[in-house]
């Protein structure tokens, strides 16, 4: 029995090593100098250049046009993450509210039109999507970055499930209490959905922050680059030079993963709840 437990821990520790090891190495290595890394390889011990590396990465004008800094990319990532999460919640709450709480003629067809979007991911329609964005002159804009990503029904689906789980009697009581559609939404639905909104916000923020393909297509102007979008540029520089700026590459990678990792860690409970129990 005791040995079995020990064996369990060994497996789990190996799992932790595999999952976390690379992150630790990236963090530690980023605090060394490029030449040092080039000479001695990766490191699992902190070096002495942590502050200056990150300062450089955040403020140095980089890229081909030289007008993008790490800070700017971080801000763009934040705009994408927050905008996407907020947009998703607003759109899908409204749509789900209409679907669950209203009787109307085209309800069934609307329902299927929305949920068909679950079938086809963005990746299979990238080129025509890009054409559409061109037609609408939305390339290299925040709108173009955020809004098309909202064209999927995941959030609507979540909220619909959640609204359906709210007891019918609550609406009935509210109607007897004289609440109309708007009042019921504001006074009852929104406050009841708080936890749900928080959970979805976290998931969607991470999803938005981590977008790669779409920003890659939509932004050619470097001042709209997000951190995740910028990764490839980092690599191109890295590959080209004599002594690659390993440290800066790692620092940018750490910056790109830090906010979503922090959010998942801090709000772990909500995050897992949102992920696995969206139907309750």
């Amino acid at each position, binding site marked *: 029995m005791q040995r079995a437990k020990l064996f369990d821990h060994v497996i789990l520790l190996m799992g932790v090593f595999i999952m976390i090891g690379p*992150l630790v190495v990236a963090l530690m290595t980023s605090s060394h100098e490029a030449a040092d890394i080039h000479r001695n390889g990766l490191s699992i011990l902190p070096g002495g250049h942590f502050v200056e590396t990150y300062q450089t990465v955040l403020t140095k004008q980089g890229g081909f046009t030289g007008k993008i800094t790490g800070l700017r990319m971080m801000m763009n990532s934040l705009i994408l993450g927050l905008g996407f999460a907020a947009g998703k919640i607003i759109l899908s709450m409204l*749509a789900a509210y*209409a679907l669950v*709480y209203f009787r109307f003629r085209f309800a069934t067809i609307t329902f299927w*039109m929305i*949920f068909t979007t679950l079938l086809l991911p963005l990746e299979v329609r990238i080129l025509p999507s890009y054409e*559409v964005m061109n037609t609408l002159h939305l390339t290299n804009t925040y709108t173009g970055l955020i809004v098309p990503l909202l064209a999927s029904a995941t959030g609507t689906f979540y909220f619909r499930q959640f609204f359906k789980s709210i007891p019918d009697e609550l609406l009935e009581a509210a109607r007897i209490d004289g609440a109309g559609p708007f009042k019921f939404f504001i006074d009852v639905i929104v406050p009841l959905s708080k936890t749900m909104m928080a959970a979805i916000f976290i998931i969607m923020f991470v999803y938005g922050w981590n977008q*790669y393909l779409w920003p890659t297509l939509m932004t050619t102007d470097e001042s709209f680059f997000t951190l995740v979008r910028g990764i490839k540029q980092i690599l191109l520089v890295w590959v080209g030079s004599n002594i690659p700026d390993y440290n800066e590459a790692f620092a940018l990678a750490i910056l790109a993963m830090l906010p979503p990792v922090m959010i998942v860690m801090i709000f772990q409970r909500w995050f897992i709840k949102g992920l696995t*129990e969206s139907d309750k």
Partner: protein
Amino acid sequence: MTHAPSLSPTSAAPTTAAGFFRRFRSAPSEPHFAKRVQFSSPFLPYFFLAPQMAIIFTFFYWPSVQAIQSSFYLEDPFGFGSTFVGISNYTDVLKSTEYLGIARFTAVFTAVVTFFSLAIGLLLAVKADGVIRGNATYKTLLIWVYAIAPPVAGLMGMMLFDQHIGPLVKFVALFGWDMKVGLNYTDTATAMIIVSIWKQIPYNFIFFLSGLQGIPVSVREAALMDCRSGFRRFRTVILPLLAPTAFFLLIINTTYALFDTFGVIDVMVKDKAANNPITLVYKVYMDGFRGNDLGGSSAQSVILMIIVFVLTIFQFRFIERRVHYS
């Protein structure tokens, strides 16, 4: 009863039709707009739906229709209009040995990534569910990687498999394997697969763990009395109860491997796709944006749409039947 988690957005989010279908079918008698009492108003529901519908029409239906349409046309390379060519874009694609090779690789890649990320996720979840001390800590540490974007994961992979400084390259060199990621086809494929598995483990871990914790204590206790062998207990009681979760994850992981690994691949092949392994989605991207072959890329898009669609239906129809829903 074990209630399998059903839907989730992640990097694999927008394709969760299967979860949706399952939920939808679980209550067939109930109309999908199930409230005994509803508001009835001539325009309010449309008002609430308008933003969502506008976006879906502009950014989902319009491009989808365009993809289908332009897959039947040949774009003039100098931008002087296009000619209707029937299904020749499709036949060109399907006759191309290059395309079929990529399709074969995609299938292998998807199968391997799905299998290992599910297996490792399950193993860790079972172990984490079994230990009492440190349970929460393990959980926290094991899910971090979920939050990392695929291209960032790809970057980490590049670092670990770097010709010059990569510790993993040094490690396999001890066994006489001279790994050249980015140059050697097999080596690059191996690295891509490892990174893709690594990135997906936390997701499966979360779902399996929550599935395990959803199994009622009384069921476990009953199994404890009925069956002495721990492994047998796992195989005959726990595993069947986890089946809905596993089924759901199978679909999610397949779509993950097909689509969401784009970032990993793009970073790891560094635009030198020529002698490197790529997946079908990456090929669509290459032909459309690098090769400017609108018709061919669209035809490939449509083929992918069909694959996704068939896969969803197939998995839903056939695998679900062998799964015990409680």
